[in-house]
């Protein structure tokens, strides 16, 4: 499956990664190389083979529906990023995280 620049830009957008024209070109070359590597899989007949995601035959454990987490807001917010756009404050206010407006 040959990739082109439009593909790279589309994938980058899906992955929320800003990519410059130059980076996109470099990435195209490197990614084409990597995809060539994984093309080898297509030669294998896998009809009827169950996909394997885990080596052990286990199921998702369940637990009682009770609250076990404690409120550690202050501890976690110590790692809050800097707000940016001219401000050196932490991106927090009244215990909430600050982000650009989402809903108009």
């Amino acid at each position, binding site marked *: 499956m040959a990739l082109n620049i439009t593909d790279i830009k589309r994938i980058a957008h899906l992955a929320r990664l800003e990519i410059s024209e130059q980076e996109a070109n470099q990435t195209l070359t490197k990614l084409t190389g990597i995809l060539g590597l994984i093309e080898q899989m297509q030669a294998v007949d896998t009809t009827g083979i169950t996909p394997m995601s885990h080596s052990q035959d286990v199921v998702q454990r369940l*637990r009682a529906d009770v609250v076990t987490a404690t409120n550690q807001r202050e501890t976690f917010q110590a790692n*809050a990023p800097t707000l940016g756009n001219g401000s050196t404050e932490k991106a927090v206010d009244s215990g909430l995280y600050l982000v650009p407006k989402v809903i108009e």
Partner: protein
Amino acid sequence: MLAKKEISSVELTQTFLDRIAKHNPAINAYIALDSDKTLAQASAADVRIANGTAEPLTGIPFAQKDIFCAKGWQTTCGSKMLANFIAPYDAHVITQFDNAGAVNLGKTNMDEFAMGSSNETSYFGGVKNPWDFDRVPGGSSGGSAAAVAARLCAAATGTDTGGSIRQPASLCGFTGLKPTYGLVSRYGMIAFASSLDQAGPMAKSAEDCALMMNVMTGFDDRDSTSLNRPKEDYTRGLSKITGEQPLKGLRIGLPKEYFADGLDANVAKVVQEAIVEYRKLGAEMVDISLPNSQLSIPVYYVLAPAEASSNLSRYDGVRYGHRAAEYDDLMDMYMKSRAEGFGAEVKRRILIGTYVLSAGYYDAYYLKAQQIRRLIAQDFTEAFKQCDVIMGPTAPSTAFKAGEKADDPVAMYLQDVYTIATNLAGLPGMSIPAGFSNGLPVGLQLMGNYFDEARMLDVAHAYQQVTDWHLAMPEGI
């Protein structure tokens, strides 16, 4: 033997801290150090030793790969994205070492988000191979590897998703083990590829690794993939390795695909010499085949990036990690924060992962890879009907020069050609020092059946009783 009775933990720890102060600026094995915290743990350990509540690892100083969240410690995963992140909690592995009374010397350097085989993708710079400063230590656990090889710690932890404990162990000349998937809790271990990641010990000997396994393994209900199995003592067989032919009756499988093209001739020679030693120890060699071996790399480079693209989507600059200094709207904030916070290799793998999971391609790539994964695992199940342990090289070459493969992702990926299949199958794998080629260490890989770590450690220990490759130390450090 991690036994110290003549000196205190504080003295021992200080010795290592002094060595780190002297050698780390050149080697760059450690990212984060905090001698106050470290020495406080050493003091606490001395109290336990004095009042008789010490355990085997109490007072012993370890290096922790910077992929483990350690409360109050800078925890970066080798990335700009987490350069200023102070972990608010301890990984289960860290808690286990703390409970055992071990001492944390500091956080070691690593390839960014564990993606790499040379430690060259770290935001904090490359790490020097203590055997030759022009060469890489391997990766992604490069910092831990250099710390063990240069004796900047008693032992270290690493993680292995495609070979990141074993390949550095081979390139730096020490013993490393990746346990069966599910034995060591991944809680607090920053995720790269969740179905492949597994933490393990990196130390001078099989015996040391066994002692570390006793501490690191065990059920943790905070990791949904943690296996609930009866507690094992991984040292239980070591003392029984005695006599002329301690491995009589052991069948060692030699996969023909691991001794074919792509393997450096000198590495092959060292591995063959190790096999001769194993014959002398009484083992019987069995020729086996792992027919789907050459598909390991393509399968891994679909599955691992796919899982990584999902795991790394949490880094959005909202609650922690890097946020761009300038951004217009939310989308712009995400796109810039991530583009700035991640290095080139990480971005490449996120892009591949996103592509193979995207609409229209999922069946052809991800699903296909999962199916071939089962075929690869089945190869091993078949092989283990004919043998007890599988042996071969760990890496296709000795340590390469820094920069040599940095521009060619595919050449770098091929470093993992012998280690990846064990991660895909979830099997345990080890690398032990087996000799040298042109002054550089060569590792012998052991692969075992599920949960067979104790036997593998015994088999490694037997070799380490009659050879001294594992005791070799680089000069001048």
